[in-house]
């Protein structure tokens, strides 16, 4: 059985400016352990899909299942890494941010400290646990977010353009780290991006979305390349071109 099932999911926003159908008839199954990249042009509905799966918003059509059970709201089984870093708690240290979910569950202080330190090391921030978010760089903050989500041991990790605001060099470093973490942890990941190279470098499958209104999954491209990925290899280039062609049609639909 698939870990996550989206069945004909749709979302129509109703507001003062009328109704806007952001997502239409979106269907997808995610298997345990896969790294799925959702790729699409700006405004096609990627964040909307993630928000529905996270339980922040309810779909207006279709249904979403996790382990066969309908998603009703946010929960600890789905960890989210947000695009910005406003989601970190400024009044807590990096370590306490990472341990926040464990604290909610009532884990003893010494124990959660040990877990947090392990995840600090995993994201390459050994010994920096006492710093507050205001003392961390943008890349470090995203590392803390990833560690915070992983430390809570969710069934699936939902990441909304987590590296979108970083410079190219930091992004490449974090992509490699994330790839290693994913390989080691075996977590299922849904990763949103509009960077084709990032998608091909990280994922086992790339889903390309049609642009909105009524954004939907247009094609799914399997990426059968060994890890670590060689970005200049023929296989990589070939997949890149394939995905690029699919995206290109969305950017220039009338050519």
């Amino acid at each position, binding site marked *: 059985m698939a870990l996550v099932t989206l069945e004909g999911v749709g979302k129509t926003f109703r507001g003062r400016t009328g109704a806007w159908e952001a997502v239409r008839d979106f269907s997808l199954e995610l298997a345990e352990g896969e790294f799925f990249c959702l790729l699409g042009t700006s405004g096609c509905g990627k964040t909307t899909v993630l928000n529905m799966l996270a339980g922040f918003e309810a779909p207006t059509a279709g249904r979403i299942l996790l382990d066969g059970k309908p998603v009703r709201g946010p929960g600890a089984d789905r960890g989210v890494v947000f695009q910005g870093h406003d989601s970190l*708690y400024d009044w807590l240290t990096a370590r306490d941010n990472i341990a926040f979910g464990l604290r909610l569950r009532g884990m003893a202080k010494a124990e959660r400290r040990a877990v947090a330190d392990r995840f600090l090391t995993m994201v390459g921030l050994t010994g920096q646990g006492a710093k507050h978010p*205001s003392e961390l760089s943008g890349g470090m903050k995203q590392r803390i977010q990833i560690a915070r989500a992983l430390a809570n041991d969710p069934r699936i990790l939902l990441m909304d353009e987590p590296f979108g605001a970083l410079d190219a060099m930091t992004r490449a470093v974090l992509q490699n780290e994330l790839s290693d973490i994913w390989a080691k942890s075996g977590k299922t990941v849904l990763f949103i991006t509009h960077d084709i190279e990032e998608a091909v470098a990280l994922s086992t499958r790339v889903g390309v979305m049609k642009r909105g209104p009524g954004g939907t999954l247009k094609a799914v491209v399997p990426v059968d390349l060994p890890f670590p990925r060689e970005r200049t290899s023929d296989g990589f280039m070939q997949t890149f071109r394939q995905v690029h062609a699919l995206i290109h049609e969305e950017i220039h639909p009338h050519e």
Partner: protein
Amino acid sequence: MNSRAATIGGYIAGFALLFLIWHLAALYLVRSVLFPSPFPVFERAVVLIEDGLLQEAVIASMRRILQGFLLGSALGIPIGLALGSFRPVRLLLEPWTEFFRFIPAVAMITVAVIWFGIGEESKIFLIAYTTVFVVIIATAAGVGAVGRDKIRAAQCLGASKFQLFALVALPATVPYILTGMRLAMANAFVTIVAAELVASNDGLGKMLWDARLFMQVEDIFVALIALGLLGFATDRAFRLLIRAFAGRFNPTM
């Protein structure tokens, strides 16, 4: 030179300059017995301190400010939290806060005296009144300003409604609460003097009033300087407190 020494040095120099200008103005510009130079005022202050009169007045005023301020804050913070957290509470109470905050405490002095007499109660009521609405509004605004992603992150880490409030909304609101209290403290100084001018047996406001009756211009200046210094010191203390809590929160505050 480190920045703290620079700050303190700046304060000292600033005050010295103020007194110098005052001295020159009294000596060469105004030249009237109604505008004494700093020296007779300082001499008078020493006498008042030796007699224990100045301390008495300061303690009387500050005690009222503190009691009313703590009472007002103790009421304002939970009301503000409820107002910011629950829509029905907001719809119900917002008209109150929007209405009462435009009736200044000074305008309430007459009612306060009629209700509570000229004893401590009326003063504490007035200070609490002037404090409570500022604190409510600042606290509610703070709750409203908690970032959406902070709430969502906690939700998908498994937070209960109570944990969301106690571990996310409340700490995120602390800097706003302290800022509201700081503003309220400034109002409290205005209010206490007005209240003591009108109806009191002691305090700095009473000292000002008596000095006017007996034309003791130096006493007036002593009281004014005492007020300025007290307000300044309290405000600094609050700033330090906000820094200590909020420095890590929000570097712009």
